[in-house]
């Protein structure tokens, strides 16, 4: 990281970069932490009609503050409808009604495949992670999936310890799989043809070499590499109204 003394945190920048990618009216399937932050920021700024769906069954939730858990009371209170967990997965997610699903993970590979199960061997794990949750089906059934993840060689790996979630679906079609990875350095997107994730956007003051060093595979960089505009004061204000600055967030 070469960003010095930013007026915003890396988490804030990630939330802003992801939020900007949501068009108004997008139906989002969100977990807790950064995804919820990004989707609610979009709702509070350029995309007031974004629809938020939480896997706890809250459809059209409009929280005033960010929930700490996917089942917080405020989600149910502000939702258009609350349905059972079997229904949210069968009728709404598998039913194909979601435009954008958000995921985090412990590891990602160049194809956008994700590991949230174990570090090390499954039977003798070095670190036992929480497991699949909704991730495999979010990536399978949403029109697009956005991954939000800090970029380090430990997380952007050549080979996953465990393939929890298939991310690579070519980046097109009715369920396109992972279509972008928003990191703390920039944005990766699948290359046309191969579908391999390559760097397409960088944050201000970050270089392509920074991103290469933070990646466990040989990272390709798009010819037309763009720079992400820094968060506007309007964006930062909206974001900080949603999230207390000192709040801990651990996905999902």
């Amino acid at each position, binding site marked *: 990281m070469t960003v010095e003394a930013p007026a915003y945190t890396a988490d804030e920048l990630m939330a802003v970069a992801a939020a900007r990618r949501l068009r108004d009216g997008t139906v989002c399937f969100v977990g*807790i*932490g950064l995804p919820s932050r990004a989707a609610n920021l979009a709702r509070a700024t350029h995309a007031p009609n974004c629809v938020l769906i939480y*896997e*706890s*069954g*809250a459809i059209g939730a409009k929280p005033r503050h960010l929930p*700490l*858990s*996917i*089942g*917080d*009371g405020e*989600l*149910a209170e502000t939702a258009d*409808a*609350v349905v*059972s*967990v*079997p229904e949210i*997965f*069968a009728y709404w*997610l*598998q039913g194909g009604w979601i435009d954008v699903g958000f995921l985090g993970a412990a590891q990602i590979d160049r194809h956008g495949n994700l590991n949230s*199960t174990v570090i090390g061997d*499954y039977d003798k*794990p*070095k*670190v*036992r*992670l*929480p*497991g*699949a*949750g*909704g*991730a*495999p*089906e979010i990536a*399978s*059934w949403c029109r697009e999936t956005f991954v939000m993840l800090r970029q380090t060689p430990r997380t952007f790996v050549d080979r996953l310890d*465990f*393939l*929890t*979630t*298939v991310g690579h679906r070519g980046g097109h079609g009715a369920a396109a799989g992972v279509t972008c990875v928003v990191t703390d350095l920039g944005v990766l997107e699948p290359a046309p043809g191969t579908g391999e994730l390559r760097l397409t956007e960088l944050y201000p003051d970050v270089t392509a070499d920074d991103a290469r060093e933070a990646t466990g595979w040989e990272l390709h960089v798009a010819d037309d590499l763009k720079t992400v505009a820094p968060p506007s004061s309007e964006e930062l204000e909206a974001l900080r109204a949603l999230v207390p600055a000192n709040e*801990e*967030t*651990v996905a*999902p």
Partner: protein
Amino acid sequence: MAEIVPLTEAVRELVRDGDVVALEGFTHLIPHAAGHELIRQQRRELTLVRMTPDVVYDQLIGMGCASKLIFSWGGNPGVGSLHRLRDAVEHDWPLPLALEEHSHAGMAAGYAAGAAKLPFGLVRGYEGTDLAERTRVGWVTCPFTGARVAAVPSIRPDVGIVHAQRADEAGNVQLWGISGVQKEVVLGSSRSIVTVEEIVPELEPRPDAVLLPAWTITAVSPAPGGAHPSYAHGYYDRDNAFYVAWDEISRDRDRFRDWMQRHVLATADVTEYRRLLAEWETSPV
């Protein structure tokens, strides 16, 4: 037909060592009081089933009640790891813990199949993942299209345990807000215990409410505050500070055991537990 009995009695009568037990509640209405009672009564060799193991299973696992866990996401929501779950899986402490893990969608389909008394449920998933090799998943072929669809085993616990806001005196139960898989687990289990915030004369209909008739439930047990540190919509909020504090309490084996000894084993019921906790909250350990 549901009997209204104290929770100690419900657990004593209905939960046996070696049972498959599901305590459900998706972030909301988590039946903590019932979990504590299982710990007090020292149930052993349980197969614990739950989509999101959470603190309640961290406690049961750390206290040696479980030999197997069937789950889909085992973390401390918004905080991080479940240290007791990890310690059991990574270091067999206090006992080895067998895992059967699913995706949320797979497990939700399994619960729905259980309620419908079908031997399996269907989900378009698992294909291409390493999970498919590590869990109980099968494949069936659509007789009409030839498509291959994943089959997940139906979840039919010996005992299903949930927490709800209210019951009436006949034992009919009403819950509202985020309702998770509570209906499925009660209908799909051989026996069921529902702990409730209160018993009221009449259950008025409400939006987004789930009603479980008395004849689908084995025992209803009053346990006001029994979801803590989870919440009961309309009664009390989630104790987010407790979830954060749990990360510290549970990180160390001794500290965990001391805490459980003091707050669970040494208390008689949820009322004593809550009283003690209120003291702890004013002077944190």
